[in-house]
């Protein structure tokens, strides 16, 4: 059984630690049961279930570090992985940046595990997909989608007395519905820790409606437009900020958070003052682990407050060098929003473009955080508060920093999933002016 109890994990970690001859040793252990079902052309394609474990041993002699991993837990394999990490450490030169492992820490009890999700059966997966396919079939459309669920645990222990343990579950669902002639396409995605919240029928109805309404898209000129980005589109843009909050890169002068002449932009107002972004492992709508991979507690922390860069993330080495608290990067992020629904945002828009989903987001320039990518699966022209007609997809070239400076309005926050990273976030739909579309795409 991949999910070990706290006692079982502790016992295994103690045993592995007992084999260590290094000055310091730290072990990370994880296991998970994951199931999935994939469908396309209104028919199931592949489906499976995987049970697996991993054990990673980091051994240090002085400031020399070696890491080895294994997924076999018999006595000989456990001894072998410890020995291998020690051999690697002995072969490594001293790393002056090595920081001694953390001592015992106190962690809050995470709210990440749901027993119903952990007990999902092949039949339930199949039922949920059947409901989705039925919606598309009834509309004379074609669904392709993916449902996955995970139940797992993670634990760590080191020679300085630190022990951490957590269990978690999650389920992500996404569906793309296309018209049979391929001229219309719509999308919806959902993510939860608790699978009983998942309504595949409702999500597929939204994707189907977008597909049907996006037929006969018109080409409009690329250029700067007011856009309403649905949360799934906001996620893939803003996560490029969340992933790049590292203080060291900023201090070294090679980040969008670097200040000309040296130092970081922490404390500077970088975006619209209505922007507040934080992470909170205990948020009931987006619970995450209360510790990170090197044993630091994950706590509620503000990253952008009233448009000001409030905190940056630090490795333990860089924090020690700078004499600051070693704040780990966020596991998930939350952006505060407003009270309006998506429909109300549309109703208040004179001219604009509604974007359902963005795709293939890549860095163009790390200095300005300029990103490129394309709209996909439901792009519509808005005029006088109403969706007027579907439009052909665009390529954009835009920086999320410039975008957050051009903020017009924020809608109600909802949990969404990034199609790029599979991460879950709590984000509002955003209305933004002067969003830069640089060319048209023929893709549907």
């Amino acid at each position, binding site marked *: 059984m991949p999910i070990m109890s706290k006692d079982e994990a502790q016992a295994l970690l103690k045993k592995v630690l007992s084999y260590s001859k290094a000055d310091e040793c730290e072990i990370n252990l994880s296991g998970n049961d*994951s199931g999935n079902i994939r469908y396309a052309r209104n028919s199931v394609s*592949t489906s499976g279930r995987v049970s697996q474990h991993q054990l990673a041993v980091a051994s240090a002699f002085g400031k020399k570090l070696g890491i*080895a991993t294994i997924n076999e837990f018999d006595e000989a394999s456990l001894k072998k992985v410890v020995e291998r990490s020690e051999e690697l450490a002995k072969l490594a030169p001293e790393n002056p940046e090595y920081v001694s492992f953390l001592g015992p820490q106190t962690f809050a009890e995470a709210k990440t595990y749901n027993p119903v999700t952990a007990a999902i059966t092949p039949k339930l997966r199949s039922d949920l997909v059947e409901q989705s396919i039925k919606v598309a079939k009834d509309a004379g459309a*074609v669904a392709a989608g993916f449902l996955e669920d995970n139940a797992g645990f993670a634990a760590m222990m080191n020679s300085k007395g630190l022990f951490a343990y957590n269990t978690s579950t999650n389920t992500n669902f996404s569906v793309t519905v296309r018209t049979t002639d391929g001229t219309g396409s719509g999308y919806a995605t959902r993510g939860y820790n608790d699978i009983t919240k998942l309504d595949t029928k409702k999500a597929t109805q939204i994707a189907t409606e977008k597909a049907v309404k996006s037929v006969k898209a018109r080409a409009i000129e690329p250029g700067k437009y007011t856009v309403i980005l649905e949360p799934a589109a906001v996620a893939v843009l803003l996560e490029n900020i969340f992933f790049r909050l590292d203080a060291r890169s900023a201090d070294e002068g090679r980040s969008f958070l670097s200040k000309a002449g*040296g130092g970081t932009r922490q404390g500077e107002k970088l975006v619209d003052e209505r922007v507040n972004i934080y992470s909170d492992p205990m948020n009931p709508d987006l619970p995450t682990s209360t510790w990170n991979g090197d044993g630091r507690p994950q706590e509620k922390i503000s990253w952008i407050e009233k448009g000001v860069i409030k905190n940056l993330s630090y490795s333990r080495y860089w924090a020690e060098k700078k004499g600051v608290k070693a704040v780990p990067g966020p596991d998930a992020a939350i952006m505060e929003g407003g009270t309006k629904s998506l429909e109300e945002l549309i109703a208040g828009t004179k001219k604009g473009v509604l974007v359902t989903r963005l795709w293939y987001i890549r860095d163009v320039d790390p200095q300005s955080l300029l990103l490129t990518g394309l709209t996909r699966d439901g792009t519509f022209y808005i005029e006088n508060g109403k969706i007027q007609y579907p439009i052909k997809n665009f390529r954009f070239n835009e920086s999320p920093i410039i975008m957050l400076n051009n903020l017009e309005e924020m809608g109600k926050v909802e949990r969404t999933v990034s199609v790029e990273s599979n991460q879950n976030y709590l984000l509002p739909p955003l209305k933004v002016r002067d969003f830069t579309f640089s060319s048209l*795409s023929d893709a549907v």
Partner: protein
Amino acid sequence: MIPAIPVIGNPIDPAKALEPVDVALKKRMADVALNAARSKGATYTDVRIGRYLNQFVVTREDKVQNIVNTESYGLGVRVIANGSWGFAATDKLDNDSIAKAAELAVAIAKENSRLLTEPVRLAPQKGYGEVNWKAPIQKNAFDVPMKEKVDLLLGVNSAAMQSGANYITSLLFMVNEQKYFASTDGSYIDQDIHRIWPAFFITKIDPTTGKFETRNSLSAPMGMGYEYLDVRPQDKIQSVTTLYKGRYDMLEDAKAGGAQAGEKLKAKSVEAGKYDLILDPSHLWLTIHESTGHPTELDRVLGYEANFAGTSFLTLDKWESKKFNYGSKIVNIVADKTQVGSLGAVGYDDEGVQCGQWDIIKDGILVNYQTIRDQAHILGLNASQGCCYADNWSSVQFQRMPNVSLQPGKDGKSINDLIKDVEKGIYIIGDGSFSIDQQRYNFQFGGQLFYEIKNGKIAGMLKDVAYQANSQEFWNSCTAIADANDYRLGGAFGDGKGQPPQSNAVSHGSSTARFNGVNVINTARNIG
């Protein structure tokens, strides 16, 4: 120059302990799964037993950041029952756990069969009996002493810093896939696959303006052993910078890279507009990958990737017409799973099909796709093209891209021959930013080094360059391709597709090629 940093330690090789698992044991385990699935009603079963070994050595400036060995060992079993696929995987390899995994795969297949519109149809495949294939490497990277690897990377870093870099991260990533495949067709296939990727990432900062530029290595990940790093003069191509063919001089490239990162800071910002592009193979591989490799994946064409990676503009009617003009007449694109030194080279794919090569674009016309056993009948083929791959024992195999390469020009042209005819152009070396839509029409690519061409001559470095095009228009604007002397492989370890996403390692070969009248944009922005 090798830095004066001592690498102390007993030169034992930890990976020496990682002898492959006994083939007889793997056959016994496979038979347990095959028999268990059959007894539960599977009409077809295949089993993959994989041991995946990786080694990472990561350094920055004068420090070794990480030395990591990883190992993953387990079994995946795929079945057809009631006409539906089912899959289960486990890392517990006792007979009972293996049989349970096989039974679970059958149960999943049966459960899902009610959602089928038509049963799976597999192309026939003969069993090969007990066979094996080993990548033809000369030097197993896992046998090379750690000191040699560390010395190389710290030397690379020192060379870059001495030539002006402010920061450099360098790494060696080495892979050994020990894969065993067995199926109810009667194949028991043992394979040993090796891959290597040496790479660096340089940053240069202008302290007065706060601007920074980066320059990444011009290496390619390869399906080779450590011999890729044995420098040979005959594997170098002299152009505006030294380019590498089959062997890589990491030290020399780092030295050049440090200086070029500084040049980029002072380079002229490109004026947006139409340019003729001369694209080096270290750059063009990625454009081939995105605009040719992906749209010719048959699963995308059919809609199996519609929810994630997308579909394709190369629909079946275009193939059936036998006259869809994908590119100009000199454009010939070949799929090849046997190319020596390539990332995709294997003897057999992950559903037991012996690998080969075939034309995809012939004289500019779309003539074929990439298929696996349950798709072959759609193209009227009676055998798979051997494009099935899973990135781990725990992942289900599906259609993945083989090496897809642009064939060299036949009229004896060199890189200089291509440049000398360009009035207003840009010569692009190395891969950079990349993005393409879900049907593979509209793409945008950056690069590492951009040189302005004026009246047939290199006129200095440019920056802030990206080009946008439509795939079909772009390949029809291909007016010249250098000859086979310039042919080189590029590639990626991380070709992503599927849900859950899987990584495929794939190479793309080409010679330098010219594309006329491509739209170039300026990517400079100011965030205040």
